[in-house]
């Protein structure tokens, strides 16, 4: 629940959804009415709940949401995403992009200090970059840094990086958490696994909060850094409680022992509308950075036929899924992007629910019910396939059930197979041993989706697991990476969305809403395209409402 800073550009929405927790609340005694507001004041603690423990305190080598949230508060990047998702400087005061768009020069803020008092310099950035590139570093985010041709520490406050070719996602990649060279470079050179260094237990960063305590499976405590370079945060303490059961989180929220937690659609709509709750909590609803889709294995000749994919898109009623499963708390997806971003367009071909059109298209592709058993056949084989999805995500499982019923209505027999995550990935996704899947993608702050849709990315450990290949899309994805010019990129990605919509390599289903409840004593929250937490250091509790005074 921390500011969006470094976002890996793609996250499996499966893990994201698993990290969502519930909450709600009957307060025995009502908190101060929400109308009370006061001037910003320092002090108080925000208690958050996480369903999973953090896995380490060097976020560069972790891949779970909790570790990233905590890491975002302890560490800074050179750049960060602002309220409207545009990039702004954090440790960098400013930057220049050369004319050939191959060199970026960062001018670093002066006077920034690490939490232990050592000065922050370009050497820290250089070290972090080298560490990310080291093949022995167990990180998932090396790819962006492997594109770098060379780096240069021009002087302690200037860092320059060159690329072989212009690489548009580059700028965002420097939102990466910068690590302290004065503590880590020496052990790293000696070949020490940095996971075993004190930094991973008692980290030193440059971020708005200092590390205080981590009790495994119990809590993480952070304290405001008084000399933070963007201003001392108003909240004095952040306490992250690890509560592995979402029902328990919801109860703790109801009892007002937790100040902020995610809600499920059911909790948001039906279980948090009584007066005691609405007095104590403010509920926020905004589009999440993810979308869900029904994907096909395009190596399967049935799905390689575009008419079949379009027919399936017509046969599925997205509205019904959104109303029935998500209680209306989602938007229909027409492509792989989130509405509201500068690169998004909905001026693409859409596939409204139309079972007759679906049957017609399937007929054109040769699928007809010749023996009258209600199932379509072609060359004597019935149209039968299995949709696989991961365990622990009831929204996806219910979505699969609705799709199963709609496809049965047009003569396609669907089975549903729900598999535990690790086994799902390894047995089915990695080996491309599936017919159809329901999954989601987490979206980043850049429109580049080369890794997901480019035809060169279909290898076993790569992300184009549906084996999609379209020369036109390939070309657009390449062009989109090769310029920093926003207008040109906008045109490129709109064209990309248009082609993708026509092709329907997957059926885009929905963009779910993120649902959060925050204690109404906490003020200064401004929901924005970047979500809730983008201005976390400006959140405050007016003096008279402060609850945890020590």
């Amino acid at each position: 629940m921390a500011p969006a800073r470094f976002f890996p550009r793609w996250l499996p929405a499966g893990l994201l959804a698993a990290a969502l927790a519930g909450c709600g609340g009957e307060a025995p005694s009502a908190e101060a009415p929400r109308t009370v507001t006061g001037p910003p004041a320092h002090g108080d603690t925000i208690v958050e709940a996480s369903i999973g423990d953090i896995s380490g305190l060097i976020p560069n080598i972790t891949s779970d949401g909790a570790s990233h949230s905590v890491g975002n508060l302890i560490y800074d990047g050179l750049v960060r995403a602002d309220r409207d998702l545009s990039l702004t400087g954090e440790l960098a005061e400013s930057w220049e992009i050369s004319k050939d768009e191959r060199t970026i020069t960062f001018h670093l803020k002066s006077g920034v200090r690490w939490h232990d008092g050592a000065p922050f310099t370009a050497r820290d950035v250089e070290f972090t970059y080298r560490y990310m590139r080291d093949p022995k570093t167990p990180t998932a985010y090396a790819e962006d840094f492997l594109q770098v041709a060379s780096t240069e520490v021009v002087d302690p406050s200037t860092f320059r990086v060159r690329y072989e070719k212009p690489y548009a996602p580059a700028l965002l990649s420097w939102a990466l958490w910068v690590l302290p060279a004065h503590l880590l470079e020496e052990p790293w050179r000696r070949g020490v696994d940095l996971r075993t260094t004190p930094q991973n237990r008692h980290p030193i960063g440059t971020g708005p909060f200092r590390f205080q305590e981590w009790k495994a499976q119990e809590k993480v405590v952070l304290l405001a850094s008084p000399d933070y370079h963007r201003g001392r945060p108003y909240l004095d303490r952040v306490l992250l409680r690890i509560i592995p059961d979402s029902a328990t989180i919801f109860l703790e929220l109801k009892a007002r022992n937790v100040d902020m937690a995610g809600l499920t659609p059911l909790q948001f709509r039906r279980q948090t509308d009584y007066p005691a709750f609405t007095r104590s909590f403010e509920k926020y609803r905004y589009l999440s950075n993810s979308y869900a889709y029904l994907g096909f294995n395009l190596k399967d000749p049935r799905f390689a036929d575009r008419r079949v994919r379009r027919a399936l898109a017509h046969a599925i009623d997205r509205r019904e899924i959104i109303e029935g499963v998500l209680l209306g708390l989602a938007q229909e997806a027409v492509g792989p992007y989130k509405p509201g971003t500068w690169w998004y367009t909905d001026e693409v071909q859409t596939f409204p629910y139309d079972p007759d059109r679906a049957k017609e298209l399937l007929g054109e592709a040769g699928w007809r019910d010749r023996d009258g058993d209600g199932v379509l056949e072609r060359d004597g084989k019935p149209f039968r396939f299995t949709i696989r999805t991961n365990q622990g995500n009831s929204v996806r499982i219910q979505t699969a059930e609705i799709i199963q019923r709609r496809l049965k209505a047009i003569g396609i027999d669907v089975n549903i197979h729900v598999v535990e995550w690790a086994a799902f990935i390894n047995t089915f996704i990695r080996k491309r041993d599936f017919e159809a899947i329901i999954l989601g993608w987490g979206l980043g702050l850049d429109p580049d989706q080369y890794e997901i849709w480019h035809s060169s990315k279909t290898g076993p450990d790569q992300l184009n697991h549906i084996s999609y290949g379209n020369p036109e899309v390939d070309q657009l994805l390449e062009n989109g990476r090769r310029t920093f010019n926003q207008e040109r990129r906008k045109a490129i990605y709109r064209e990309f969305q248009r082609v993708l919509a026509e092709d329907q390599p997957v059926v885009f289903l929905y963009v779910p809403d993120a649902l959060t409840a925050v204690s109404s004593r906490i003020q200064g929250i401004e929901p924005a395209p970047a979500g809730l937490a983008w201005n976390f250091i400006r959140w405050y509790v007016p003096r008279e409402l402060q609850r945890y005074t020590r």
Partner: protein
Amino acid sequence: MIAYVTRLALVSSLQMLAITVLAFAVIHLAPGEPIVLQQELQATQSPQQKQTLRELYGLDKPLHVQYWTWLNRLVRVDLGRSFSPDGLPVWEKIRERIPVTLSLNLAEVCLIYLTAVPLGVFAAVRRHTLFDRLTTVFVFIGFATPDFWLALLLMILFGVQLGWLPISGLRSLNWEYLAPAAQLWDLASHLILPIFIGAFGGLAGLSRFMRGSMLEVIRQDYIRTAQAKGLPERVVVYKHALRNALLPIVTILGLSLPGLIGGSVIVESVFAIPGMGQLAVQSVFARDYPVVMGLLTIGAGLTLLGNRLADVCYGIVDPRIRVTRRSD
């Protein structure tokens, strides 16, 4: 006697070895690998880089080689390091969980025995009375109630509605600032519900067992003799019958030794208690092989130890068993 102990030790270590071989094979047979959870679908990672990481963890080697490496470390009392990004030694991870789980389970076991034994005895002595029927009903409800559901109901009642007890966790947020006595009460109040829930299910089983054992003893000749001697009923039941009826119960206690450090996943998850059960489940989901193997080895070791202890205890309690052992 020395020969007996030596043989026991030899057999135990062979059993131990067999258990670890099996365990190692089984957990590696489960699909998925640790790398998967760290990187699969997460941003971009080249296949070569993945391979490097597999080599780093030694996962590229054949299974028997991996096992041999693990065993070599084990002999030097080293369980290795966790695969997770915290990179902690496995023993340290286990060590920080043991006190919580152990104290929770000890309290549960005490509660179970202190309640189940009298309950069972009364039910047996007053067979077919209203009390017996009531306990029977209670016991079957205890068997049938899903503990996570009961836990949530009690949390809503005592935590949310009445506000008498904390809902989850081990300590309050301001624990560090409390006086020692208040700290103790704080800790205790956090444990009341988990211990009750943990004991509830076990109570049912054990009280039935106690009742059965007691009924059997009461039918024996020596009880009739005692009664015929004109001893007061109280002495007959609590001195002659109970002592003998307790023997099988003591055996069960010995066998619950490994259970003492194996936490209940459900109780620990619902109440957010950082114990062994959670560690076990999470390391299995993350395919954190070193941690899983560490837990299995310790669990297997304690089970074997418990069995051997039970053997020895039988020997002490019942001379016939000792004699048979020696002559075979």
